[in-house]
């Protein structure tokens, strides 16, 4: 276990070095957040029917999305992708550790360090200037915190699975653009999930992606009552376990037919 913690720490520290990228990312995300808020405001102004979320709720949802955007498993761990493409993965295989565990540890760092750099200034800004609301109460705040931890696990499991898939695709660009599309729609990154049409809701509820953003956000806003938290977090954790198992299975298959690139 200490080995995995050490890998996590090293990766985490390395990622914290990229402060300039964090600053640039922060500016982009604030800008993008303002654009999205304007669109939703216009949408609510012209809409006559009753919506499943109020405008202030949507605004809070949007800012939470912007703050935690880097937690989404957009793509494999770039380092692991590089390892596989260059053949340096040979060195990963001569370490006396479980390879999937190793990559999971790196993925946790990958999905937390950049968020940590960006989310605090973003939340402060959004809360004080751009109309983001605080958590609905102490219980929703707690539920949000617990759910967010499960989000990290879920996101890391998906990242590790994507990393393993690089063994089969090598560049993986095709697969990744597909993943990004599904991810954006099904996690709530573009449109808050309650605003999606009724017919797609059953699918959204089953798939793992809502656990990446929508679940913790709705707990935060009290849109899901704290009593529902247990079930919501259960959904996240169940998918985490399934994705870890899928990643391990796929990795075992990959290793049996592995070809180390470049001699």
């Amino acid at each position, binding site marked *: 276990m*200490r*080995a995995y*913690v*050490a*890998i996590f720490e*090293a990766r985490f520290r*390395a990622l914290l*070095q990229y402060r300039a990228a964090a600053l640039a990312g922060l500016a982009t995300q604030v800008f993008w957040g303002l654009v999205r808020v304007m669109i939703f405001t216009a949408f609510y102004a012209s809409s006559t029917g009753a919506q499943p979320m109020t405008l202030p709720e949507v605004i809070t949802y949007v800012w939470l999305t912007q703050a935690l955007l880097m937690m989404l498993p957009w793509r494999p761990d770039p380092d692991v992708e590089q390892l596989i493409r*260059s*053949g*340096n993965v*040979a*060195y990963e*295989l*001569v*370490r*006396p*550790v*479980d390879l999937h565990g190793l990559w999971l540890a790196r993925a946790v760092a990958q999905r937390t360090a950049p968020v940590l750099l960006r989310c605090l200034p973003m939340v402060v800004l959004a809360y004080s200037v751009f109309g983001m609301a605080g958590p609905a109460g102490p219980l929703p705040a707690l539920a949000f915190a617990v759910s967010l931890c499960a989000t990290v696990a879920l996101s890391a499991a998906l990242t590790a699975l994507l990393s393993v898939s690089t063994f089969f695709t090598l560049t993986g660009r095709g697969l990744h653009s597909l993943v990004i599309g599904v991810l954006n729609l099904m996690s709530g990154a573009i449109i808050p999930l309650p605003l999606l049409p009724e017919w797609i809701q059953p699918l959204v509820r089953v798939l793992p992606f809502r656990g990446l953003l929508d679940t913790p956000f709705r707990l935060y806003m009290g849109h899901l009552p704290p009593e529902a938290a247990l079930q919501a977090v259960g959904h996240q954790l169940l998918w985490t376990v399934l994705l870890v198992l899928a990643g391990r299975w796929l990795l075992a298959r990959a*290793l*049996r037919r*592995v*070809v*180390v690139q*470049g*001699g």
Partner: protein
Amino acid sequence: MAQIVVEDLRKRFVVAERRAGMLGALAGVVRRRHRVVEALAGVGFRVDEGELVGYIGPNGAGKSTTVKVLAGILVPDGGRCEVQGRVPWLERVEHVARIGVVFGQRTQLWWDLPVVESFELLREIYRVDRQQYRVRLDALVNALDVGAVLDVPVRQLSLGQRMRCDVVAALLHAPQLLFLDEPTIGLDAPAKLAVREFVRRLNRERGTTVILTTHDMDDIEALCSRVVVIDHGRISCDGSLDHLRERAGVGRRIIVDLERDEPLAPTDARVVSREGTRVVLAFDPVRTPAAALVARITREHAVRDLFVENPPIEEIVARLYGEADARGEAEPRPEPREDPS
């Protein structure tokens, strides 16, 4: 005691072939052509504890594939392989905890971390006791003279410094078996000598078994008492350097500087080259004792200078590889087979 036992090891790769040109690329989208490459076609050898074995062969002969199977990275298609009593790919984690590996063309150090932090990480990964780690690290850093670069990020190291740090990294957990895959590739002369000297001492003083693959014949000549030659996925020669020389049938050389420009053609030696008054003869030391040949030449000719030498190992190896190539041509090559995928 045998530390490595390999019998009839086989591994084939399926390579997708791309046809040339735009039409070829389009055809490749619909139907891919695959070619089967037999990287290992029944390799077998044993290595005892404390040996320092050179494993050589031309590019694509199967050297790296063998090392990767022995290191637990690749799973072979057939054959038996036991390293320190374990089957590498079945007990990968236990196996790799007791071996060290250096791939000369790659680095195992973390790109954006200072060298010493990579070492610290490896200490955690291999669960080396802190006290032991400090003692080993000191000894290795001294022996390889990398004390000055410990705090430098890996990306800023020169190739020679990086390679020496990679060797340190491979030995922090004190493995009894070390695989060196082209450890001197791209290094300048002093760095090569430093790595070579270190490997020699490691083998002599600590009794570490070393498997060395290289294209640098100086490495082989300086270090290896035993050489295994692989070609087209088969072992073509296994023995001492002398045995290798014998096998290649290159014989020994005698170089004669004559006083005058006169013909020199002894019946029991072959003229390899002639440049002015310098004649290079090749002979078989078993049939023709060197002393007798030298005596006869000096008796019959006016000789200014004369010396006997073993042909450089490059030549022997080139000869062995060439021989195998000639054999390879005669064998039917595996036909490319087409299958849609």
